């Protein structure tokens, strides 16, 4: 390259304005980073056929077993509908746990985590992209559970408002994936135990969220769980919209929606704080590039 040749265009930088001015800053950079990470997640999830099968079918196998248990015990059909709704929601919890919570740990294992910290965008934007992409991919896969419920188990739904369903679903998902963003930094701090923690949290959360029975059946424990886990309240709220009185709801629906919104704000804040702490720790101790730590 001679002294008079034009500067080569660099990815992410504005052409014609010199190589030092980035194309995106502020909110635009946040959104661009979010979209970029979401795209990777969606495209990646479509390129691994075995993962499509595992994400779409496996969570529903457990749901089928629990529905058949109700049938074996001679329970009224409305309980089968309760279990189907809960079973569909397990798909999201699994995605939050493994696709969000354990993700930064995987990134470290693969030697990519330091790239996230070195990138000019916020780590919150990266995790938001991961959440948006994961949610989009999981929504498609959870349709398998819906199809099983409708065509195999013939669940009966009450007349419901699609707007109410959409509102409650969005609130639940924002709260749930914000929790996943918080878990991702916590799991990374725990290091090698991330795998075990994610493993150990799966079924206990199914239990505490009342995914296969009305949360009211847990009594006081159910109320405590509802105060900690957004999945508990989200499951109950979605069931109330879809099943009406048969859902045996824990709290009135507007109250649950309000609490879910509160969860969303709280977990988005804790995610931001914990990621900032993680970044500081990574620079101070320099441990994040080491596998097995």
């Amino acid at each position, binding site marked *: 390259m001679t002294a008079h040749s034009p500067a080569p265009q660099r990815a992410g930088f504005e052409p014609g304005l010199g190589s030092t001015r980035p194309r995106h800053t502020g909110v635009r950079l946040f959104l661009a980073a979010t979209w970029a990470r979401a795209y990777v997640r969606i495209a990646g999830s479509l390129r691994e056929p075995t993962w499509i099968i595992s994400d779409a079918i496996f969570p529903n196998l457990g749901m089928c077993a*629990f529905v058949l*248990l*109700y049938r074996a015990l*001679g329970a*009224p059909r409305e309980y089968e509908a309760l279990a189907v709704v809960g079973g569909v929601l397990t798909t999201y919890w699994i995605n939050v746990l493994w696709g969000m919570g354990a993700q930064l740990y995987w990134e470290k294992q693969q030697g990519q985590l330091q790239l996230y910290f070195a990138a000019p965008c916020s780590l919150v934007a990266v995790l938001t992209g991961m959440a948006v992409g994961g949610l989009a991919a999981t929504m498609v896969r959870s349709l398998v559970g819906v199809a099983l419920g409708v065509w195999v188990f013939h669940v009966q739904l009450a007349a419901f408002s699609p707007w109410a369903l959409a509102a409650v679903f969005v609130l639940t998902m924002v709260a749930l994936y914000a929790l996943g963003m918080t878990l991702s930094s916590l799991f990374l701090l725990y290091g090698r*135990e991330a795998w*075990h923690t994610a493993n*150990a949290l799966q079924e206990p959360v*199914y239990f505490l969220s009342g995914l296969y029975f009305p949360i009211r059946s847990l009594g006081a424990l159910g109320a405590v769980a509802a105060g900690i886990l957004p999945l508990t309240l989200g499951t109950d709220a979605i069931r109330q919209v879809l099943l009406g009185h048969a859902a045996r709801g824990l709290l009135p629906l507007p109250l649950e929606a309000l609490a879910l919104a509160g969860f969303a704000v709280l977990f988005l804040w804790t995610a931001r704080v914990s990621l900032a702490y993680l970044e500081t720790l990574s620079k101070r101790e320099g441990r994040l590039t080491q596998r097995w730590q």
Partner: protein
Amino acid sequence: MAVIPSIRAALSRARTAAWLGWQVEGNWADPVLFSIYILARPLATALILAIMYSTVRAHGADPTVFVGFYVANAFHSYVNTVLVGMGWVVFEEREEYETLKYVYASPVGMFTYLAGRSLVKFTLATVSVVVTLLVGWFLLGVRWDWATVQWLPLAASIAAGLASTLFLGFLLAGWSLVLTRSAMVVLEGVTLASYLLCGVIFPIDLLPRPLQAVALGLPFTWWYEALRRFLAGHGTHGVMQRLSDTQVLLALGGASVVFAVLARWGYFAFERRARALGRLDQTTLF
């Protein structure tokens, strides 16, 4: 005789592998945390079943039927921990720790190594089964009449069930040797599919007919039915009800022998295939 020293050597190697397995499984946490980790999953599932039953008890759910399902669910820990766990050993050694090739090249040998690692998993599964049954008995009211327990058939069925678990574990481990990244999906799939296909918590009559045929071919279906009859005192309704205790035991024994032979042959066939394909040290950065 040369047989005794070779058996002694194999046992010694298996013991070493078991010790190593214990270090791998348990060295990441203190004993209390490790116990919580081991018991959280099976106890949570047991509690889900118990709450489901208590929720619908008022609608006429038969308590004896539920006891049978609870017992089978407790023993299903062996399938989750040992059978699937042996496949995870291969997956972790190759992908996580990248030590599979060293194990394969060592004088211990993969088969003995896997047998040793399975001992730890059997121990952990046994703890899980005992605690789940104790929690059921003392906290959830899942009880049976000890006077009706048929001890000899029960012991025989447990022996056959555990042998089937071990041999199918070898088969799954062999399959994991051939598979790379997809081993994770297969292992998770087997865990969940076995819960559905073996009629752990419902009679297999509720499955579609083709799946019923598959269920009847699996030793675990017969094992759980035997446990219900010989421990809890009641089998399931439907297809199984038409069979006598002896027929159930014979079916369990037959299925176990067939699967043992098939699994041993299959393991070594998979191992040869994995070696030919160069899969023993192939990592995929999953």
